[in-house]
């Protein structure tokens, strides 16, 4: 270790010498390395390595751009689809609203009609009942009258039969015969 340390100052002046010497000389290792480096770069350029690397990077950029385009197209498509479905859903909702409104309207008219019908039928029945009552009254009156006539006739018969003697009867028959004769004559 100490030997190496001791050597260091011995090497250092040599290095300084090499650095301060003429640069464009084959004895200057820095110059030789520079030449070789330039040759290496020239070889790379000759085989179009930088162009290839640049092409790779450009292709990557193009790929990313294409991917982005694809993604954007997909998103647009999806958005269009969403819009379609939203419109369709709105339409269906409108339709449903209309159906509900119509059904409500129908129900209301039906209810009104039914009410009207009921009122009419009640009125009709009322009229029928009144007719029946009236007919019953008339029938009753007629019966009462008939019965009265029957009773009156019977009573008159009774009275006449009680007052009638055979002579009076014969006289009455004679008078009736004459009367009929006069009437017919």
């Amino acid at each position, binding site marked *: 270790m100490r030997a190496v340390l001791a050597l260091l100052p011995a090497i250092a002046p040599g290095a300084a010498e090499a650095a301060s010497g003429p640069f464009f000389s084959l004895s200057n*290792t820095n110059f030789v390395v520079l030449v070789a480096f330039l040759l290496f770069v020239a070889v790379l350029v000759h085989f179009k390595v930088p162009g290839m690397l640049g092409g790779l990077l450009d292709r990557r950029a193009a790929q990313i751009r294409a991917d982005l385009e694809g993604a954007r197209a997909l998103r647009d498509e999806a958005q269009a689809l969403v819009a379609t479905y939203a419109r369709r859903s709105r339409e269906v909702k409108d339709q449903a609203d209309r159906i509900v409104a119509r059904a409500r309207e129908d129900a209301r008219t039906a209810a009104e009609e039914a009410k009207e019908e009921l009122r009419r039928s009640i009125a009709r029945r009322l009229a029928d009942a009144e007719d029946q009552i009236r007919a019953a009254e008339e029938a009753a009156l007629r019966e009462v009258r008939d019965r009265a006539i029957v009773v009156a006739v019977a009573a008159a018969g009774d009275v006449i039969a009680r007052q009638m003697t055979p002579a009076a009867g014969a006289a009455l028959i004679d008078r009736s015969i004459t009367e009929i004769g006069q009437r017919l004559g």
Partner: protein
Amino acid sequence: MAESAEGEAGFAIHPMDQFIVRPLFGDGPVHWYTVTNVTLWMALTVLVVSLLLVVGSRGRVLVPSRMQSVAELLYGFVYKMVEDVAGKDGARYFPYIMTVFCFVLPANVLGLLPMSFTTTSHIAVTAVLAVAVFASVTAIGFLKHGTHFLGLFWISSAPLPLRPVLAVIEVLSYFVRPVSHSIRLAGNMMAGHAVIKVFAGFAGALGVASVFPVVAITAVYGLEVLVAFIQAYVFTILTCVYLRDALHPSH
């Protein structure tokens, strides 16, 4: 050996000179507060990462620019690594691992520039990183599991007589972790740069034939680019592995 190298004119190879820490301004001893070439290149590393991640992705546009794409890829890469290796609950520690990767990778890559200074080739630097990882992972393990964390060393699936032996081995390997963690990165970075400099040293003596070392350095450069990325990756994925051990100590 240095003497003999100096003896042959123009064949003085100093492959390790590039790793010497020097004051950036003036000359003299290096104190802890001295601004050195290490400071400069660390600052450049931070600058590069900031440029990439802050300025490069400033637009935050949906379709990324090239710079933003690089930043996104970096982020996604590290995030996926953390999630895959350390598990879903390891993603909480993603910022730390992202920071480690975002320091090591640009430091390695910047080190490839000629005349630059490779900060990650110094064990002093990588050891700080590795010890920080070691300490925080150990702390997480004990805070999350208490003494159950020690189950990491007691392999209950092994036969009972073997367990104490295995425990010793496990404890040893656990404490060797920061050493191997730091030396792996620093050694790889240093070796490659040293090889480049050695080849460069040949060039001065070979005249026209120096085209061979130059071509060789070019080839090594290709290798070094790989090493720079792979070592940054390895350093980071090992951090994830250690984190997983801390989060799920039972094997």
